[in-house]
């Protein structure tokens, strides 16, 4: 049945990266990345601090200049595929004292499709409200965002991503410093997105939950150490190569692998 579908989008991979290098001040942060992500996978991006995980995402989204290489999203440049991409930045990247409500923040997810000069419509707000309900924050819609807990703030960001109604999502550490309830909510949401055929890339820190949450994994430390189905690539050997000389980190990682199996 799949084969009968025509058009570039069905044939092209959601994300294909070739020879990607990004450097700050002439020092490479990620080096010669080649990566192909198949459709409909929940993908974790794992690696030590400074491995270039956020940089990889930002380079895919054209947010930082590339030194070399190409990124294609469903076979197109980012600029052309923009409306099919959703982005959840790190929570600390914004000022939570900003004078907006949770609903305002979620409605921002529709701005990209609204276009210049168009006002935020009732429809945008209705969509935003619906998304807030799905992440369990309907009662908090009109709160100023600094009055939400860390986990609620993170869920607000996820609701905003839902409103973007994308086919591929990039999420930068959505699990960072969230409570157990939020973690469960996020996992449920990820599974639901997957069920609807979406592809989701998540920068993830908690090695203990990788095998549990993600069916695909990219191990990154400036270069791609390994990428593929989690069962195959999330091995002690690969983790040792990813976390390298950082012995304590490696031991911790190894223990967690043992525990999680």
């Amino acid at each position, binding site marked *: 049945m799949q084969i009968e579908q025509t058009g570039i989008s069905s044939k092209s991979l959601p994300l294909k990266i070739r020879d990607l290098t990004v450097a700050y*001040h002439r020092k490479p942060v990620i080096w010669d990345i080649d990566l192909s992500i198949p459709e409909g996978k929940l993908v974790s991006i794992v690696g030590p601090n400074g491995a270039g995980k956020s940089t990889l995402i*930002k380079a895919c*989204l*054209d*947010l930082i200049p590339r030194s070399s290489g190409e990124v294609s999203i469903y076979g197109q440049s980012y600029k052309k595929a*923009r409306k099919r*991409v959703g*982005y959840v*930045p790190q929570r600390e*990247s*914004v*000022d939570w004292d*900003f*004078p*907006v*409500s949770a609903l*305002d*923040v979620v409605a*921002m997810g529709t*701005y*990209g499709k*609204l276009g*210049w*000069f*168009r*006002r*935020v419509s009732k429809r945008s707000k209705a969509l935003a409200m619906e998304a807030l309900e799905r992440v369990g924050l309907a009662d908090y819609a009109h709160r*100023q965002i600094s009055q939400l807990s860390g986990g609620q703030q993170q869920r607000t960001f996820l609701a*905003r991503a839902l409103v*973007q109604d994308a086919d591929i999502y990039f999420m930068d550490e959505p699990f960072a410093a969230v409570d157990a309830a939020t973690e469960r909510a996020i996992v449920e949401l990820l599974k639901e997105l997957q069920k609807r055929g979406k592809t989701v890339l998540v920068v993830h820190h908690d090695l203990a939950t990788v095998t549990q949450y993600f069916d695909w994994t990219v191990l990154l430390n400036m270069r791609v150490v390994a990428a593929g189905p989690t069962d195959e690539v999330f091995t002690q050997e690969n983790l040792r190569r990813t976390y390298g000389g950082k012995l304590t980190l490696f031991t911790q990682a190894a223990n967690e692998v043992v525990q999680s199996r």
Partner: protein
Amino acid sequence: MEWYSIDTWIVVIGALAAGACALLGNFLVLRKMSMMGDAISHAVLPGLAIAFLVTGARASLSMFIGAAIVGVLTAVFTQWISRFGKVDEGASMGIVFTTLFALGLLLIVQGADHVDLDPSCVLYGAIELTPLDVVWRPTLYGYFLEVPRSALVLAGVILFNAVFVVAFFKELRISSFDAELATAMGINSNLMHYLLMTLVAVTTVACFEAVGSIIVIAMLIVPAATAHLLTDRLWLMVVLSVLIAMGSAVLGHLSALIVPAWFGFADTSTSGMMAVMAGLIFSTVMLFAPKYGVLPRLVRKTKAVR
């Protein structure tokens, strides 16, 4: 206290200038670049001077253009120096605007023999004199109005800024809150940044002549910071900031006339008093604002402890 039509015009001109600055100031404050207003308002000086030396006239348009160009250059240089020179943004801003400001002063002093441009006028303005430059004498319901040039120019600027803020409200909101997501969605945050900087430069120049740069710097920051303490809604913050700015202008002129008399002095600088009033309003709000004020918060905390 005696009130003449000239006083009405001083208040109108002050209020228009203050409102025009406050409109843009909201987004400077929210983007945590309050000092960019300070930087640009100083750095435009060489632009003014060069435009002046080249054209040899105090033609408003060429000075606007000169200042706008240098204003945007200030923002560009600041970014370059902090990115390529590994200097933090604040220091890089300080380097750029002091250098440009000094260059402007040199140009003005050098050209002072044959030009009529006074550095102290740029700093303090001459709002008390602006009503004398009447360019339009319409009759309205039997009243003869003598509209000064500054009032017309500043009315144009405040209108333009208001249209900008309304037309780009959604873009200003998202690019100020989450610049990366905005850019990823195709709302280029850098473009918004430079648009804003251009308007700040143009507004600064328009206000200079009338009210001086001290009040420009004050009105870019203080009313917006005050309004931020009073509301959780961006549009309301913008509206409040303009009202606060205009209120400071009215109170400023009134107290410039009244207060010195209490101590046996003649009336004082209106521009200075307007900025002082803005500061006083801010202090009051900081203490008493219902939600974010220092005292109400203290009271709530004490109650919570009990």
